[in-house]
């Protein structure tokens, strides 16, 4: 077995090539994944998210919980799990779903039981952040790694103040300090074009992603 020292020795034994130096963060030029000057982050988020087949709906704080229930009903969901990262909305969402006659469980309770998790119709999560320029939502290990993927429908609640401009703002900012064991960007429903380049949604993850943007 190669141990760390001998493995590293092989890597370090060769002569060094030319080092051009590391560009600093500020020097990064614009990319398609950054906000353009004068753009509204919320509008760009909606445009990009819709371009990859995400359903985006703007709601106000008071109407958020009932909008979640309505989104689940529109997807024809029966069995639903909700993630703890909904924060203040956790209890109102639970209540709204119950009033709508849905079977509601906490994702943390469902996750250890594979059969139950596999039978879910939908999951509801919050997010750590959202990225305007890519139309992405960012979830973490605290949300649940599979929480956004395990069911055919994913409903995600995004607060307007969670929307960052672009990839740079996400990876350079403090927001990821709360990421835990992992973070992930997801942009629209799961997709594949492996069979003769025909686009299919909902391959392994959800086929329906509904974002409620709380403004």
């Amino acid at each position, binding site marked *: 077995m190669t141990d760390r020292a001998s*493995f590293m020795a092989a890597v370090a034994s060769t002569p060094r090539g030319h080092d051009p130096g590391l560009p600093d963060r500020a020097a990064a030029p614009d990319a398609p994944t950054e906000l353009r000057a004068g753009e509204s982050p919320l509008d760009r988020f909606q445009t990009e998210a819709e371009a990859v087949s995400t359903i985006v709906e703007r709601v106000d704080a008071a109407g958020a919980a009932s909008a979640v229930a309505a989104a689940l009903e529109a997807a024809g969901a029966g069995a639903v799990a909700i993630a703890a990262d909904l924060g203040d909305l956790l209890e109102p969402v639970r209540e709204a779903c119950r009033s709508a006659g849905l079977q509601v469980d906490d994702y943390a309770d469902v996750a250890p039981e594979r059969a139950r998790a596999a039978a879910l119709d939908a999951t509801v999560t919050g997010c750590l952040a959202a990225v305007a320029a890519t139309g992405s939502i960012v979830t973490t290990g605290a949300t649940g790694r599979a929480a*956004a993927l395990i069911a055919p429908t994913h409903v995600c609640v995004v607060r307007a103040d969670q929307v960052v401009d672009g990839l*740079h703002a996400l990876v350079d900012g403090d927001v990821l300090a709360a990421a835990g064991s992992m973070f992930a960007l997801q942009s629209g429903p799961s997709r594949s074009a492996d069979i003769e380049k025909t686009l299919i949604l909902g391959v*392994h993850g959800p086929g329906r992603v509904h974002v409620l943007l709380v403004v």
Partner: protein
Amino acid sequence: MSATTPREDAEVGGRPLPPGWAAPAHQPGADSLADTTFEERARENLARPFQRTAIANATDHTVFALQRRFAGTAHDALRDEARRIRAHAITNLPTYLEQWVDRAEARGTQVHFAADEAEARRIVAGLCAERGVGRVVKSKSMASEEVSLNSALEGAGIDVVETDLGEFVVQAMGDRPSHVIAPILHRTQGEVHELFSAMAGEDLPDDPEALTGFAREGLRHAFLTADAGISGGNFLIAETGEVAMVTNEGNGRLTTSLPRIHIALVGIEKMLPRRTDLAVLLPLLTGHGTGQQITTYVSVLGGPRGAGEPDGPEEMHVVLLDGGRSALLGGEFEEALHCIRCGACQNVCPVYRQVGGHAYGWVYGGPIGAVLTPLFRGQADGGELSHATTLCGACDDICPVRIPLHDLLLGLRRRRVAEDVAPLSERLAFRAWGLAWRHPATYRASTAVARAGLAVLARDGVVSRRVPGLARWTATRDLVLGRRR
């Protein structure tokens, strides 16, 4: 489909598969290139007209999408920056690797060191054996293709299920992926329909949605019953000890979320110094790979399930693969390590577009395949690939990190000559030519002889017959003679 021979048993690793769903039989391809030549493989693939049409359709679409994606942005400046980041990371790889290992271990990731392909197989198989792993789900990993991981695990009695739709088809057919991003570009919907129908034991509807649905159901079952998930990695982030991974189907996310063990096999050259570098490299990887703004899923994994988290693996292992990489550091071919595996050079290569990925014989196709194969496998096993190119430079133009592929290919040709791999007759002919053209008199004499000889062979000013001694060259090319003054 004769290649399809589903296993008889409907139970693998002690767990039943869904009713009527047979596990695919893996038929490993040839691990050595020595059995066939590029010319033989190219000839075989040229006889498959669907492949050429499919490659043209798919790659044109991707290249147009890429151009649209970066229109109006500072694309060139972004590529310059990416090149600098990659060059800096590779030049300082010893430092960044040490840093990455320290940070990863501090986050609870267990790191393993594979000097070569055989050691990578031993480590992964050993981890599985020690932990009683009966079934493994895999998300797409080119590194695992490099080390032929599947056959090693299956040899150890482990049930391995590829979960990327294309890789799943490849595995079930006993085939190999033909493109880094689109593994079954060379397969028709009809072939997939036939395969899945055979696996289902019934005639499935011949439409992509239904076929994908069939695969999803069986693969979901595999996800829920697997003990370990094996993935690759697109980037290692030195600053944080994380592994970043991009997928579109979501299989990468499930592979690293549901099983109790996650094992990532990653080449050491995937290093980025900082998280901030993702903001430069991610848009280039996804934009040049598929034309997407960003792939549907980007996971950045920094250890096993954390305290208070509702799911995730109990153990995260990363197997760092050298496999011929460290030998390139500081040398003429170091820039080959800058590659981020987007496949763009493949898409624009006039040779790849005709012969397809399999003609390259090993794991990687197109210009980067023609470079990496002899570097990782040795001249004898892939040196001829440096001639499987027109040197048109389209690959240089499109590379998101500006690897001078054209120069690397020329360098490999020079090395091949220096190592005397070319046939004796070829070397003697070039030496004689060189001597003859050194002096004006012998130069003029040689052209006179050539003109007279070719005039005998020509019909209406065109030589299209096999010329003695040059038959291999003229068999596929016409030589048009200039009009005599």
